[in-house]
């Protein structure tokens, strides 16, 4: 097997929460030496967030943090201390990439910017990612991906009607921006390898995430129309929705079904049975017009069926369908299992823990979750010894002075 693609690429990673860490995780799972620089004085918020091992909080017990920080090493450095900043600048020549995801004032407070870093390491690549970008009147806006999902339009196109927004779960845009950030970072690494030049990347979570609503924005600019929520309806499929099946163990079970044409409609009827009323719904246009009646008919006919068996029967007949899965279902899902999606890594404090795996597989240079997430400061001695050749006595002193903290 070939070496991992980013073997030998060194990253000093100040990012926290989700967008930055998920971005650098892609590099780490493919061989980059990513060193998370954290401080117990202001820990990564995900370290304080559930789920925790045994449901007990602790700075090294969050799976939320762990899942987003595999294959990385971790050191502590309280950058609010001048001596910590000196140590960072001494480490900088080792790095190929520096990443950070604070509001812009944090780096200013540390008297750090791209030019200062470039003076020390001319070909450094610096990625800054915050909510709204490094320039403009709203650049210092603090927030999380749930707020950005509202601000960038996702809440508006989620729900049963405009009067009743019903947002996507969680910090949705946190899971859009990283892929754009990784493309930008690898483009910069590739350019640097070809030309010897580094560069500065300013990625606003806002601007990257809006690409997932580009059709709505193009439409509004061209025609003034403002698209809103449509519940489970579609202009492309009918029927199209979620239908309740037989409850299992006292829990609701639903199936999602999408019918793309009249052949698939007949196939659906072949599986669920065809009441006389179905004749009225033979054409796509007819089903679109009377979607509520179609929903009612399907709902009545699948209410007594098991979601899993019905999925198998519908898919065998050529109709797109799948159970509406909860998080327990995901762990039992045969397709995710066959893909090797789930990983159990043995974390020094958390023990064997469930990690989401890669969403793709590569034939020749596969990525891997090479190790569990670091405990806070787990690799401080190792990394400072390796990069700066600090000895144990020097490290002890810095730790005592809360520089390494």
């Amino acid at each position, binding site marked *: 097997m070939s*070496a991992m693609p*980013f073997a030998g690429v060194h990253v000093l990673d100040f990012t926290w929460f989700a967008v930055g860490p998920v971005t650098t995780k*892609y590099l780490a799972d493919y061989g980059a030496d990513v060193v998370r620089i954290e401080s117990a004085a202001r820990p990564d*918020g995900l370290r*304080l967030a559930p*789920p925790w091992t045994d*449901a007990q909080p602790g700075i090294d017990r969050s799976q939320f943090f762990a*899942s987003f920080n595999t294959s990385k090493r971790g050191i502590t450095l309280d950058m609010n201390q001048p001596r910590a900043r000196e140590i960072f600048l001494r480490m900088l020549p080792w790095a190929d990439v520096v990443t950070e995801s604070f509001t812009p004032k944090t780096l200013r407070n540390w008297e750090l910017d*791209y030019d200062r870093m470039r003076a020390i390491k001319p070909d450094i690549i610096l990625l800054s990612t915050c909510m709204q970008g490094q320039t403009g*009147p709203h650049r210092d806006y*603090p927030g999380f991906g*749930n*707020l950005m999902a*509202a601000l960038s339009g*996702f809440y508006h*196109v989620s729900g*049963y009607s405009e009067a009743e927004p*019903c947002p996507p*779960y969680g910090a*949705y845009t946190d899971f*859009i921006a990283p*892929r754009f*950030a*990784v493309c930008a970072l690898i483009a*910069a690494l*590739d350019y640097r390898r070809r030309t010897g*030049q580094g*560069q500065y990347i300013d990625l606003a979570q*806002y601007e*990257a995430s809006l690409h*997932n609503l580009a059709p*709505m924005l*193009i*439409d*509004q600019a*061209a025609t003034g129309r*403002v698209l*809103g929520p449509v519940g*489970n309806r579609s202009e*492309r499929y009918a029927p*199209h929705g*979620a239908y309740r099946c037989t409850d299992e163990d006292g829990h609701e079970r639903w*199936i999602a079904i999408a019918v793309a044409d009249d052949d698939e409609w007949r196939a659906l009827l072949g599986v669920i049975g065809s009441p006389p009323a179905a004749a009225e719904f033979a054409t796509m246009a007819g089903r679109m017009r009377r979607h509520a009646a179609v929903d009612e008919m399907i709902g009545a006919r699948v209410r007594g069926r098991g979601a899993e068996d019905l999925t198998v029967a519908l*898919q065998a007949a050529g109709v*797109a369908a*799948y159970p509406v899965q909860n*998080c327990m279902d*995901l762990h039992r899902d*045969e*397709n*995710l299992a*066959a*893909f090797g999606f789930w990983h159990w890594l043995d974390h020094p404090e958390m023990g064997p823990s*469930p990690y*989401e795996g890669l969403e793709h597989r*590569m*034939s*020749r*240079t596969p*990525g891997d979750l090479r190790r569990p997430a670091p405990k806070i400061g787990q690799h401080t001695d190792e990394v400072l010894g390796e990069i700066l050749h600090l000895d144990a006595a020097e490290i002890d002193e810095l730790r005592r002075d809360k520089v390494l903290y």
Partner: protein
Amino acid sequence: MLDLSDDKGALCGKLFADMGADVIKIEPPGGCLTRRIPPFLEDQPGPDRGLYFLAYEAGKRSVTLNLESPAGRALLGELAARADFIVESFPLGRMEALGLGYDAIAKINPRLIYASVTPFGDTGPGRDYKTADIVTWAAGGAMYLMGEPGQPPIQMSLPQAGLHAGGEAAVASMIAHYARGADGLGQHIVVNMQACIVWTLMNEQAMPILHGDYLRRSGVFTGAIGGRRKTVYQCADGHLSFLLAGGAYLNSTNAVIAWMKEEGAAPAWLTREGGLKSLTPSGFMAASAEDYAELDRAEEAVQSFFLTKTKKELWANILKRRLFGAPVANAADIAADPQLHARDYFVTVEHAGLGRTLTMPGAFAKLSATPVGPQGAAPQLGKHNRAVYGDLLGRSEQQIAELRASGAI
């Protein structure tokens, strides 16, 4: 990049086009599927009017090519011999059946990176399953968490699953590209759409294992187990995303209470010394029934206050007072956002077929040495047949006419 994908991979080619790659959309007779995805400009269907098409095929070139015809397949082989990347999202086995699977292409071009986007992977019992955006949304666990408890779980109203998969195909192709820089060899990538949606769940997958239970959909309330917080408030002219909580949200929570006090809109109990009892340090932990009663009352008071404010007033105060909040913006709000204009975000491109300009989202990031961003409008069907088959593959006018006559292009 040769882009043979549909709505499961279109964003991959779009990202590459934005980074300056020459992306050629290979379209079957009648045009690629994304041309037929509604809604359309002014609700008028037409091959150049689909909003999804205009958004995610922008900046690509278009050729027509019939994979059912042997001459068409031979042309694709010639293009593949010159290409750096292929992205496709056909049903599993289809490209192999045409003699255009990864192994066959790698024989003529070992440098090539070949990404296959699949709904459910290529190994499980569902490897041949059909999907649609709503079905992937359900399979990946996102749908279960979205919707009101008494109503069906819901999708997002604009398709998302294919965009996560297309973005993932772009990332994996870039990683493979970096690997190729070391040794000149390409490889095959399989993207799993269902897994892409699992990654949007903010690690909820671990909840049932570590905390013994899983989340249910809870409408506008955040569903952290043991914690129930309202996340969407009504205001005078719309809605606002806001959360009363401790932890990282504590300063913001106290700031909104201070604002209410300034305006004489805070009940006395809300502003008493020491703040709300119920705001736990972490902001995530389960609180007592008493704490919840207090939070419910606080949410009611804040809701009444927000009803007296417009989205614009709220947004100005969010920025001024550093509140963790955001208006529920629609397309018109976003188009008018001064922040995006200050950063020259939107880009206007000329669409020859429509005879008009279109304004679209611009650079996904600002790169100082190698700027990225939209390279033009989505192409008319077959617009680049002559450039690609003539200039690139060296076919004469006569030969191109024959290919057209035979139905190969």
